[in-house]
C-alpha cells in the first residue's frame, strides 16, 4: 500500500481521481470483513507463542474488519472439539485453526467441512489437507540456519570434532522432522557429527533435564546441545551445569522466549531460530480474507524463521519485537 500510494502521487489528475477511487475502494475492501465472524481455535493461549499468534490474528482481523472469537482449548481435545462445535453452531464465516495436534486437526477440519466453513491452518499442521491454506514456519530453513550458526560457533572454539546432541520435539510432527533435517544438513556440511536425538514427550522440565544429562553422560565428546523447543531451555542449562559442563557445552534453541535476547547477547545461548507467530497470525487472517473474497490462495505458505545469534541480534531486533514477541 505504501508503494501504491507513492506511485499515485506521481500520476496525472484523472489518474489521481482514479487512484483516489481505488484507495477508497481499498478502504472499503480493507473493512469488508467487518460484518463477518471468524473463529480462532488455539491450543492454549496461555503459552506465549500462541498468545502472540492470537494477537496477530486479532490484529489483522481488526484491520480487516472481522469479528474474531478466540477459543483456547488449553491443550484439551474435548475443549477443542467443543469449541469447534460452538463455532459451527455460531455459523462463523471462517476458522483459523492452530490445532492441538495434527491428528486432532483432522476432526476439526472434517466438522468444518461438513458445516461448509473454510479453515486456514496456522503453524501446527493437519493430517488432512482439506483446508484452505496452511501457514507454517519454514522449519527447515530456520533449523539449517541454526546449524550454520552452531557450526560457526564450534569452529570458532575449535570444537568441531565434538558432537552435538539433539533434544527434539516429536518427530512425527512435520515441523519436527523438518527442523531435524535442516539442522543435520548444516552440521553435515561442516563435518560435525551428531551425538544422537531424543524426543520430548511431555515437554516437562524433568524430561528435558534428564535428556540433557543423559546425552552428556553418554557422549563425552559432546560439545553442543540443540533444543528444538524454547520453553525448557532452563532445564537444559541446568543439566549442563549439573553435569559440570558449563562453558564446555554450547546450547542453541529453536523458537524464542523474551529472555533469549539477553541470553544471546551474553553468550549463554549461541542462538535461536525465532518463529514469527504474530506474522503467522496476521497471514492466516489475510489468507482467510482472500479466500472469502474468492481469491486464489496458496495451499501452503511458509513464514521465515529468524536465525538469531549474537551477530545479527541488533539488526533483527525490530522484527523480533513485533513478529516474534508480539510487542
Amino acid at each position, binding site marked *: 500500500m505504501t508503494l501504491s500510494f507513492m506511485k499515485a502521487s506521481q500520476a496525472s489528475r484523472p489518474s489521481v481521481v482514479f487512484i483516489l477511487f481505488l484507495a477508497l475502494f481499498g478502504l472499503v475492501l480493507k473493512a469488508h470483513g467487518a460484518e463477518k465472524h471468524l473463529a480462532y481455535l488455539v491450543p492454549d493461549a496461555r503459552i506465549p507463542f500462541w498468545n502472540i499468534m492470537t494477537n496477530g490474528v486479532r490484529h489483522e482481523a481488526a484491520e480487516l474488519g472481522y469479528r474474531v472469537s478466540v477459543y483456547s482449548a488449553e491443550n484439551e481435545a*474435548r475443549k477443542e*472439539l467443543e469449541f469447534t*462445535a460452538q463455532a459451527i453452531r455460531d455459523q462463523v464465516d471462517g476458522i483459523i485453526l492452530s490445532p492441538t495436534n495434527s*491428528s*486432532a*486437526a*483432522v*476432526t476439526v477440519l472434517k*466438522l468444518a467441512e461438513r458445516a461448509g466453513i473454510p479453515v486456514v491452518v496456522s503453524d501446527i499442521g493437519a*493430517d488432512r489437507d482439506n483446508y484452505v491454506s496452511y501457514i507454517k514456519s519454514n522449519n527447515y530453513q530456520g533449523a539449517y540456519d541454526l546449524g550454520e550458526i552452531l557450526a560457526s560457533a564450534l569452529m570458532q572454539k575449535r570444537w568441531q570434532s565434538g558432537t552435538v546432541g539433539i533434544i527434539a520435539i516429536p518427530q512425527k510432527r512435520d515441523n519436527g522432522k523438518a527442523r531435524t533435517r535442516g539442522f543435520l544438513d548444516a552440521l553435515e556440511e561442516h563435518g560435525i557429527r551428531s551425538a544422537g536425538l531424543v524426543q520430548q514427550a511431555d515437554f516437562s522440565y524433568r524430561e528435558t533435564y534428564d535428556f540433557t544429562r543423559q546425552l552428556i553422560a553418554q557422549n563425552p565428546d559432546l560439545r553442543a546441545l540443540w533444543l528444538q523447543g524454547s520453553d525448557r531451555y532452563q532445564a537444559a542449562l541446568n543439566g549442563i551445569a549439573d553435569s559440570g559442563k558449563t562453558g564446555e557445552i554450547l546450547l542453541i534453541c529453536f523458537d524464542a522466549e523474551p529472555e533469549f535476547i539477553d541470553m544471546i547477547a551474553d553468550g549463554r545461548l549461541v542462538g535461536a531460530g525465532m518463529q514469527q507467530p504474530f506474522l503467522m497470525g496476521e497471514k492466516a487472517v489475510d489468507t482467510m480474507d482472500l479466500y472469502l473474497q474468492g481469491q486464489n490462495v496458496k495451499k501452503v505458505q511458509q513464514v521465515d524463521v529468524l536465525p538469531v545469534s549474537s551477530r545479527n541480534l541488533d539488526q533483527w531486533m525490530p522484527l523480533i519485537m513485533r513478529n516474534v514477541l508480539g510487542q
Partner: protein
Amino acid sequence: MTPDDRKSPSLLVKAMVVMTAVILLVFSFHAVYVYSSQRAEIIQGMNRDIRESLERLSKNIEPFMAAYSINEYEKLVATEVALNEHFAVVVRDAEMGEIIGEPYYVSGQVRGANGNYIPYRKDNPLLNERLDQAFLSGTTAITGPAGEELGQVSVYVSDDPLVRKLHAVLLEEALTVLILTVTLSLLLAVVLRRYFFGPLQRISASMRNCDADGIPLAPLPNPRYREVRVLSRTINSMLESIKTAKEHRKVERRRLENAITGTRTGTWEWNVSTGETVFNERWAEIVGYTLEELAPVSIDTWASLAHPEDLKRSGELLDRHFRGELPYYECEARMRHKRGHWVWVLDRGCVMTRTEDGQPLMMYGTHQDITDRKEAEKKLSMAAGVFRYAREGIITSAEGEILDVNAAFSRLTGYAHSDVVHQDYSILYSDRHSELFVTSMLKSLDEEGVWSGEYWMPCRNGSALPSLMTIAAVRNSAGEVEHYVTLVADISNLKQNEDKLRLIAHYDNLTGLPNRILLMERLRHAMSVARRRNELLAVVFLDLDGFKEINDTYGHAAGDELLTILADRMDRALRECDTVARLGGDEFVVLLPDISGKGDCTPVLDRLLATLSAPARLGESEAHVSASLGVALYPQGATVKADALLRQADLAMYQAKQHGKNQYRFFSSTEILTIADALPLLDSPSSESRDN
C-alpha cells in the same frame, strides 16, 4: 488307411474324450464339494473376522474415543477396514455426539462401488444403501474403563471376499481340475498309446500289409501284454482259419470250376425281377454259340432258343418252384442249336434269394447237354423193350452176381425176378454138366468173350430146361468187361424131337425094345466092360416058334400085339442089367452081362422059355408060341468081335430050332461050323425073310 478309415472316429480320441470327461466329471464333483465346504468355511471365517475385528476395534478405539482423538480411531478404523477388507466399519461415538448435539458422532469407512474406501456419513443415503447391501455385520459396544458406554462399533462385511475367495477357490479348483485332467489325460494317452493303442496300431499296421483279399501277409506281432497278446493270437488263429478256409474255398472253387468245366456244365444266373441273366461260355457253347454272339443276353435269350413246348413246361415248373411246391427247378428241354437241330439240355436251378415279401429275386442254375444221354435212353428203351419182350431168357450179371433177369427167363425157369437177382450166378449152374464143361465155358468167355452151347438151365421146380445158351461179355470203351449178358433159348422142343429121332433110330418102333443099332452099341459096351472086369457076357439070340401061324391066323395086328406082349414079358423076366433088343420080325437078342459061367445063364434062359411059351390073349383069342434060344459066351479064347459073337448066338439058336424048338443051345465052334456053311450070314437081309 482308406478315406473312410480317416473319417471314422479314432478309438484313442474317443477313449481320451470319455476319460477326460470322466476325469472332469469326478473332479468337478470334487470341486463342487470343495466349493460348498469352502463357502461354509469362509462364511464362518467371515463371522469370526467380524467378531475379532469388533473385539479389536472396541478395545483399540476406546482410549482414543475417551481422549476425543477422533482422527486416531478413525485411522484405526481405516487401517482395520483396509487390512481386513471389510465392507464397512461404522463407529458411533456417544461422547463426540454429545459435543455436536447428537446421540452419536458417526464416522467410519465404507467401500465404494469402485472399491475405494470412502468416509461414512450417516446423512448420505447412498452410503446407507451400501451398508444395507452388506452380507454380514456385527456391532459391539465400546465401553470405558468404568464400564460406561462410550459408543458402538459396527463391522460390515460384503460378500465380495466371499465371492473373491470362492472365485479363487473356483479358479484354484478349475486349475487343479484342468492340470489334473490334462496331466491324467496326457498320462492316460501315453499309457493307452504305449501299452494299448501302440500294440493295436502295430497290429493294425501289420493287418494293412495285406493281399488283395485283405488277408495280412505276415502273422500279426505278438505283443508283450496278455490282453492284446490274446487278441493278436486270436486274430492270428482267425487269420490262419481264414487262410485255411480261403485255401479250402479256393480248392473248392477250383473243384467247382473244374467240375463245371469237366462236366461241361453251362451256368446261369437270373435276376427274376429284372430279367438280367449271366451265362457262362459253356451255356452258349451247348447251343453252338459264343457268348459274344448271343450278347446282349437276357432271360429272353433262353426263351428264344428253347423249344416252345419245353418252354411252356419249363415255365410251369418254374412257377411251382417259385410257389415253393418244388424244392428245385429241374426240366429237360430242347434248345435250338446254331446249326438248326435240337439239343437236349438238363436245366436245373434254385431260387437262392428272395425279396422281403417272398418273391424270387436271384436264381442260379446249370445247363447240361444231355443229348447223348437222351439218345442213349432211347436206345436203352429199345433194349429194354427187347429185354422185356424177348422170348429168350436174358440174364445180366457182373462179377458173378445176377443183376437182372427178364420175364422170359422167369417164364422158362419158373424163377421169380426176386429169386435170382443179386444172387450168385452159380445158382444157375447145372449138375448135368461136368466141371470140364464149366471150365471150358469160362475159358471161352475169358479168351473170346463169348460162349455158346446147349445148357441145362436149372428150373425152380428142380428140373432142368434144355437151352441154347449164349453168354457174351459186354465191354466198355476201355475194353474192360463190365458185365455179362446171357441169352437162354428154350430148345426143349428141339430136344424132344432129337429124342424122338434117337428113339426111332435105336428102338423098335413096335415093342419099344432097343433095335439092332442100339443092340450093337450096347453089345460092344458090354464086351468092353466084361473084358475090363474079367466077367462073362452071354449073348442070347431068340426066335419065336409058331409066330408065322399067328400072323396068318389072326392077322399082322394081332401078331404085332403078341410081339408087344412077349417083349414086355421078356423085359420083366430079365435082370435090371440085362438088355433085350428086337432085331426084326420075331428075332430078339438078349445080353446077359456079369455072369460067372453057363450055369448062371440057365435060370434066365429057362425063365425066358417059360414066359414066352405061356399063352397070350389076343382079343378074345389065346395064342400059343414058344422060342428057340442060341447062347454065345464072351470072352472066348480067340479075339472075337460083336458081329461074330452075335453070329455065334444065331448059329446056336439055329441048332435049337433044329433040335425041336422051345429050347436053348450054347454055341460050340465045332458043332456050328457045318451049320454056318449051310446058312446065310446073320445080318444078311435073307435071314429075316427066312424067319417069316
